[in-house]
Every structure is written in C-alpha cells, then in structure tokens.
C-alpha cells in the first residue's frame, strides 16, 4: 500500500496515523496542518516530521497564514495544488484525509 495522507489540523484528534502501516507513506500538510512544517511548539518540531521522509506542505496554505516558504522545515517540500494532483496520481495508490 502506497498511502498519501492529508493532514489538515495542528492537533490531530485521532491517532489513526500512528497505527497505519504503509509500504510508502506520504504526508501532505494542508490547512492548519501546515503548522507542523512551519512552527515549533516550545522549541520542538512536530513529531509528524519524523514519520516519513515523504513530506509536503501546500504553498497556498502557508502564505494565507502570513508564513513564508523560508519558515518551512528543510525536510518538507513546498508544493502547490498542481503538484498535489501529480503526487496523488503518480506517487500514491490510496489517498486519505485524516
């Protein structure tokens, strides 16, 4: 299973992501999920960034919040909506929104 997961919140109220097993896992940070890529909480980066090397953040949802690409953790690739479509079709078989 090659699974692409959209993360749209800062505080995930479900622990599904911790339990899922995938041969390849991608995390696409959108909406308030972008803070995982841009913000440290009490100086600590989000533990989500340790889950997989396949990390993406939606540029449009970064800029709407007054944040800049330079605020994004270096492990996370900045993508736009068009890139997201390519990721969905080319890199993952199943798509989830948690």
């Amino acid at each position, binding site marked *: 299973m090659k699974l692409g997961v*959209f993360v*749209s919140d800062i505080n995930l109220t479900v622990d599904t992501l911790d339990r899922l097993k995938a041969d390849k896992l991608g995390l696409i940070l*959108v*909406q308030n999920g972008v803070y995982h890529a841009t913000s440290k909480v009490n100086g600590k980066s989000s533990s989500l960034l340790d889950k997989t090397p396949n990390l993406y953040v939606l540029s*449009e*949802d970064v800029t709407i919040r007054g944040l800049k690409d330079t605020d994004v953790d270096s492990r996370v690739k900045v993508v*736009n*909506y*068009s890139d*997201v*479509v*390519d990721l*969905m*079709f080319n890199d993952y078989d199943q*798509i*989830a*929104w948690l």
Partner: protein
Amino acid sequence: MGTLTIGCFPSIVGNMGYDFALKLADAAVSKGHKVSIWFSGNATVSVKAHQKHLKDYSTAEKYLQALLAKGVEICTCEACTVARGIQKTEGIEGIQWNAMHWYLAKIHAADRVLQIGGE
C-alpha cells in the same frame, strides 16, 4: 490521464476543507484529469443559487459554475439538500441531484478517491 472522485462533506462558507476540494478539483481538471465531486452533509448547502458574494465571506457559486464549465461533474445528495429546505428548482444549474449510490458509482470508476470528512 486519470479519474479523480472527491467526496466533500464539510460546509461551505469559510470552511477550508470545502475550499480545498474545489481548488484541488480545478487543478486536476486543468491538467486533463476527469473529475467528479460529491456533496453530502453540510456541503450540500453550497448548491443553492443566487449566493451573494461579500468579500468577508467565501461563496461557492461562481467557483462551482467555473468547474462545471470545465467539465467537472458535480452532484449533491438530494436528501441532505431538501432536509435543509433547498429545492431542486433553487439549485445552481448543471449540478446533479442524486442519492448516495451516485458517489459509490463514481468511486467505482475512479483511479483515485479523496474523501474529505469533517463538518
């Protein structure tokens, strides 16, 4: 080129889950993919015609019309919609009204499915 089916349940104005669904659909159809969108739950409110576009409030109508013009198929859950008092005659032209199995049929035909829950 592929086929994308999006199920969108969160409500319209200011709910970014809804905005995301529409912008993703636009990006996908612009790249040549075939796209369908299923509205259920509160998202069905967005098929009401004659939405007033105030700049403090996001509105769906003009974006939905643009997607329809690009060939995106859009369908609203009829039961959810009439439960909210919106009749078919009051809906945006070109949007289909059907039951939940419409969504399942589009899932059957899809290469990729994105189900967006939430309110």
